[in-house]
């Protein structure tokens, strides 16, 4: 026998499951539509591969991208490090779907400071506008971060607008991102903003598309309340070492950010496209 109270609970759960399905259906339906993309290997910039900025292009239709890296952060009084994995898939023309996860040491300490470890991030990136003579390439990115990691709480929402403009062998990038945290501690901010301006250019004097240098400056909200905004400078390189394989390395440093400052960050990894 199910008691009335238990029945109510069950009904609530069923409604909740239905709403969950509706959410998934809405998101899937939005992601199922499609538009343009470009065939690229070295120039396909994914966030943190190796620096924060990304380009306003989805990976090509039917391409599968797999990346792995190792990151080392030297912080005030404590260092952390760990690996990350990401998968990208060109689900339709101009539509990239992806999943990524990053682990860092000291998750219990880091989670108090807005740094997740082991959280699964799913995203969709859509090419809104292809680059033309007058307009840059524009893309929109929507991501959801699930609290699958240690000491993680709440599901977070990530929204971003991306722009890329080409000038010969040089490209300029602008990224604006907003994050809404589902659950926070008393010391954490619920809303976070990031603005990134960056540049990449081909290093070869012949314009060979095998090596790309990147640099950016990122301004982001401090995840901890009442602490100053974090300004980060980063630089990196992507080097094609196989027909579809890219080795990347990057370094960065936070210029401001008080206790949350990363004095130096180093990242090395590989991307493979199939």
């Amino acid at each position, binding site marked *: 026998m199910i008691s009335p109270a238990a029945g109510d609970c069950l009904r609530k759960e069923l409604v909740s499951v239905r709403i969950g399905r509706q959410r998934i259906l809405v998101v899937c339906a939005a992601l199922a539509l499609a538009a343009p993309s470009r065939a690229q290997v070295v120039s396909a910039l994914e966030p943190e591969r190796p620096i924060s900025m990304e380009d306003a292009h989805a990976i*090509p239709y039917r391409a599968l991208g797999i990346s792995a890296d190792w990151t080392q952060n030297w912080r005030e009084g404590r260092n952390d490090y760990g690996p990350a994995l990401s998968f990208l898939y060109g689900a339709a023309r101009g539509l990239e779907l992806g999943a990524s996860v990053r682990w860092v040491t000291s998750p219990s300490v880091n989670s108090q400071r807005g740094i997740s470890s082991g959280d699964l991030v799913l995203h969709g990136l859509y090419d809104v506008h292809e680059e033309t003579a007058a307009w840059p390439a524009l893309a929109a990115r929507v991501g959801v971060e699930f609290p699958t990691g240690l000491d993680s709480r709440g599901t977070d929402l990530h929204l971003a607008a991306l722009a890329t403009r080409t000038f010969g062998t040089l490209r300029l990038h602008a990224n604006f991102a907003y994050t809404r945290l589902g659950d926070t501690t008393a010391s954490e901010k619920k809303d976070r903003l990031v603005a990134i301006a960056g540049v990449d250019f081909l290093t070869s004097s012949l314009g060979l598309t095998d090596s790309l240098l990147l640099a950016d400056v990122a301004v982001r909200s401090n995840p901890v309340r009442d602490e100053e905004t974090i300004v980060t400078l980063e630089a990196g390189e992507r080097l*094609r070492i196989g027909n579809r394989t890219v080795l990347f390395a990057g370094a960065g440093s936070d210029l401001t950010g008080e206790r949350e400052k990363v004095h130096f960050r180093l990242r090395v990894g590989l991307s493979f496209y199939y």
Partner: protein
Amino acid sequence: MSRFCLAASAAAFWLVVGLAEGQPEEPFPPKGDYNNSVHRFFPDLDAKLNTVRYGRWRALEIAWVSGIDARGDNELSSYYLRLVSDPPRFDPEAFRVAPRFSREASVLFRALHWGQVFEAQVLDILASPDSSPALASQRMTRLLAIYHREPFAIRSPPSEPPPSPAVAAAPMSARLLVAGTRLFTFAAEDLAASDFGQQRWRVKKTLDDYDFTPSDLPPLETAAYRVSAPTVQSRFPEIAAQLDAIAQLRRELFDALVPGPDAALSRQDRNRRARDLARRWGLPAEGIGER
């Protein structure tokens, strides 16, 4: 995260998707066990072919931006000769070698880029170590079907090409690029006319004997598969015709960018000629040269 946030973000994403004026763009190269066979088993040949690929895109960018003239001819030939002396290991990301051409004439860019992908895959199929006549034929049929599925795939050429004014306007570059294009046909013939065990010797001999910087212009017809790759022509006539059609489109595009005898080609004339060319080949001409 509240339901409102999720619903709002889904609605915003939906709106953005709805407003997007996306155009169909080419997919990633078709997947197959034969992928990258030329790069893996014939790296010297692949490097030479990459030289030609870079040269073609660079030539298109120069021709698109400044027209075909003596200055552009010198610029391209010196660039190409530097590439020949140090051939690139990997194929180019075309949109970075020809950025303005790719965004101002995206339909023609895609038609030629998808053609380059098609040509590379044909050579990969022929160079694949597991290739047998039946398997190669099966793969070619699939590849051709995938190629034709795209909206910017080139159908049969509209007519025989007229005499090429680009050759006279840029003789040095024409000489180098025609010789380079002919190398593709010779490579295909070497790979098609022998089994995997013999291919490396035939390819090596071709590369050893090949003159990448001939002093005279090779006859234009020798850069066609139907002339220089008789085995490919007999075994895969549709593939050979398709590859020749792609080469013809490229040549006609260069011809369209040759200025008149009296004045430089204005941007409007260039765009009009490019649109005419696209229509002639059954490609959508909208957007070419538009801001």
